[in-house]
């Protein structure tokens, strides 16, 4: 006994027969009860509590107003009654256009980075820096860019070239808002697609090349089919992100209120997030709009969360398949 304690510090003196006095379970609990685990555990709990409080508040406030009429009717009575159908329609239209623009570009960039560029070539590093940089640009700066480039430069240019200077595309419109969002979500798609392509076993590619397939044939019949779910995840995450962004579309096409639905590429549109912003800051009578406002927030939250959840589930499926 005395020789033991002389060699080992008292604190880690081994329990008799390798077992704690109170059994393993209690000893683990005891370890968790020391100050640092306790404090950090409490902080973790606080973060979870914040999430729960926010979600609970919005669900409780919005669930009552969430009726079929609310989802399918246009706002009326100065937006104190009626529904949000035009905003839902506008949001869907917006993200569909955005997806059409961002998926090909993002996937092509990922293919280039994985299968064309040498990893440490100057070109590859430049693309990497550009993508990282894009991911960090504030969304309001994208809004400014959309206005300065798409609306004022591209749109005005199209008007001068094809419409004899008449105003057609040189104004805020759904096409410009969706392209702005496409630029903003480009890094999301690139990263998700690259991740999926990285997971394809080398054997597949080598087998394809050994059969005499060219690089493009390999990409088309091996790489793309095997990374489809990853591309899908990227697309879903991009849509979820895009549907929640307001700052980039404020000056590039979103409108307070429109009596008609957008049908042409150069129409303006109503959008859920922008609708929330307008109702909560510019409404003359916040008390009266509050129930509708809560329901609108809930719809937006459900939309983005459902998409995120879908992406997470797909990702889990991809991972589990890799393990096998």
């Amino acid at each position, binding site marked *: 006994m005395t020789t033991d304690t002389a060699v080992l510090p008292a*604190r*880690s003196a081994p329990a008799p027969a390798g077992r704690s006095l109170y059994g393993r379970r209690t000893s683990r609990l005891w370890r968790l009860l*020391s*100050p*640092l*685990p306790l404090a*950090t*555990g409490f*902080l*973790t709990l606080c*973060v979870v509590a*914040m*999430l729960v409080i*926010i979600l609970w*508040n*919005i669900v409780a406030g919005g669930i009552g107003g969430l009726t079929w009429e609310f989802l399918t009717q246009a706002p009326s009575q100065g937006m104190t009654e009626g529904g949000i159908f035009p905003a839902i329609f506008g949001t869907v239209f917006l993200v569909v256009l955005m997806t059409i623009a961002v998926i090909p570009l993002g996937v*092509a*960039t990922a*293919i280039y*980075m994985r299968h*064309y*560029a040498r990893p440490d070539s100057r070109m590859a590093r430049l*693309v990497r820096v*550009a993508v*990282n*940089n894009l991911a*960090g*640009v*504030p*969304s*309001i700066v994208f*809004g*400014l*860019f959309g206005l*300065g*480039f798409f609306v*004022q*430069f591209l749109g005005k240019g199209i008007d001068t070239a094809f419409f004899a200077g008449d105003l057609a595309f040189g104004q805020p419109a759904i096409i410009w808002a969706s392209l702005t969002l496409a630029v903003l979500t*480009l*890094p999301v798609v*690139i990263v998700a697609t690259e991740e999926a392509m990285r997971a394809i076993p080398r054997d597949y590619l080598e087998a394809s090349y050994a059969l005499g397939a060219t690089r*493009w044939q390999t990409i088309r019949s091996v790489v793309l089919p095997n990374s489809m779910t990853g591309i899908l995840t990227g697309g879903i995450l991009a849509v*979820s992100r895009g*549907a*929640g*962004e*307001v*700052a980039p579309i*404020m000056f590039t096409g979103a409108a307070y209120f429109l009596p008609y639905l957008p049908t042409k590429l150069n129409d303006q549109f109503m959008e859920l*997030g922008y609708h*929330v*912003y307008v109702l*909560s*800051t510019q409404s003359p009578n916040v008390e009266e709009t509050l129930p509708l*406002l809560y329901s609108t*927030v809930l719809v*937006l939250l459900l939309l*983005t*969360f459902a998409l*995120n959840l879908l992406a997470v589930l797909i990702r889990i499926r991809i991972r589990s398949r890799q393990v096998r």
Partner: protein
Amino acid sequence: MGRLISTAALAAIAVTVLIFVFIGREALPVITSPEVHEEVTVRKMIEPLEFREGRPKEFVWQPVSGVPKYSLAPLVLGSLKATIVAILFAAPFAIGAAVFSSEFAPPKTRELIKPVIEMLAGIPSVVMGFFALIVLASFLKDLFGWTFRLNATNAGIALGIAVIPIVYTVAEEALRAVPRSYREASQALGASTWSTARRVVLPAAAPGIMAGIALGFGRAVGETMIVLMASGNAAIWSSSITDSVRTLSATIAAELAEVVHGSAHYHVLFFVGALLFVVTFIINLIGELYVGRLKRRLTGVAG
């Protein structure tokens, strides 16, 4: 086909360049155009000016008035106040949660914590802004007995909640990147789990945690909708964090829609956007430098 793909891959680079060019193009008249200079110069945006005779010089942002005033100082101060409150609020929670999930939590709990905190990141900023405007502001007003519901602290706390996931994710990755051998060596020397965490793991992962804070800071500076809705939007030159503030980002969002295209005000707002772009770019760069330092440190290359 290869050529087509290579061309498409240039899109990311092209867009980055275009952002530089087109924001710069609209911001540059503030420095070069004589017409804009009749209303505002860069000097006037930085220095305090005497607006009423006999009164001390002051910083005023008041672009729509008889004599338009374009001092950036209140906006920069506003952004700083909101962002600093946000980081001070977010850092303890985010780092605490990161330490807990990487060091102490049983594996199953950890698997649960990560996606739950990442859900916070999935809340659109306009929804967070709405929550801060309607719920949080009233709660904090009652709690602290404020005169104004919407102020720097309210916006800062909402911003803080929004940046917790970023700081958490980066910090947690850094902590988990610390090799097992460090922990085992420490525990073999007789240290407990928590003194291992405090004395060995935290210092080793410190650059990564700094990177998380830097990236959170960058996100908070650029965040628009939350501050636009929750800060009260008054451009006041004041040091109190319970006064209403107007940030750089919110200024652009609030004013650009009503501004005449090509006016001095229009160009000044793009100038503010360029400033925001450069600032977030530098902050993100700092964040990446820290990540690089962490990698070098943990792979054993002298750095």
